[in-house]
């Protein structure tokens, strides 16, 4: 792991998180819609069931917030601002986003919302860490 500071590790963590989302969402779709639809051109907007729908929306939501995380982590690394605040923010964001997809898939309302806001707090910690210091 040499050469990777917490910001770069966080970026790799984000990549792993997205891959887990894509794999889970793809597998759920595969199970409910079948192989033929999944490898086909998906012209019919098939209803893929509750779980596949939730994982699809969780992935969309992750991709919506990922650019902010990406930007802050890259700036923190390039500007040499990877301090405790940025490290804490990165850990908080990754952990909350990992919990969020589980909560979404399980259909929990409030815990999912709370985790989403916790991840937002992680971004704010990163922002403060990048701008101060």
């Amino acid at each position, binding site marked *: 792991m040499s050469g990777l500071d917490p910001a770069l590790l966080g*970026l790799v963590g984000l*990549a792993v998180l997205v*891959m887990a989302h*894509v794999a889970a969402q793809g597998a759920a779709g595969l199970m409910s819609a079948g192989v033929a639809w999944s490898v086909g051109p998906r*012209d019919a907007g098939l209803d893929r069931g509750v779980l596949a729908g939730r994982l699809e929306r969780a992935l969309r939501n992750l991709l919506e917030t990922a650019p902010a995380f990406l930007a802050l982590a*890259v700036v923190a690394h390039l500007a040499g601002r990877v301090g405790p605040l940025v490290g804490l923010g990165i850990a908080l964001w990754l952990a909350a986003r990992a919990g969020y997809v589980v909560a979404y898939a399980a259909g929990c309302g409030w815990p999912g919302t709370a985790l989403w806001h916790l991840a937002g707090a992680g971004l704010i910690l990163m922002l403060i860490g990048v701008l101060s210091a």
Partner: protein
Amino acid sequence: MNVELTVLILAALLAVVQLGWNAVRANLELGPAWFLTPRDDAPPQQLPTDLGRLKRAYENHMETLPLFAIAVLAVVLADKSSALTAACAWVYLGARVLFVPAYRFGWVPGRSIIWAVGFAAIVLMLLAALF
């Protein structure tokens, strides 16, 4: 400039071309009137099959591009650039270019295989950055 960064720019340009092409086609098919509204209502008609496929191909590209950007940034910033990571970058781009006709012409299971090749290239780059 690193090969990986050059390919990252080309991958972004691929997204620009896909977006531009789809936008022009959709405007020709549906008429510009609906696009100029705040799009509160559903479009006046469904996209034709081929355009729906191109739209999904673009959306899929936008799903993998952030991962590729992460892999490139991690490799370049951590000074882990090598012949392997450069080759992976080109493989990713090649797969993403091929993915468009694969979706448009309904290659089965070619599209899924092409997608997996591009995805595997990203995973290899991430592993190369880590170790």
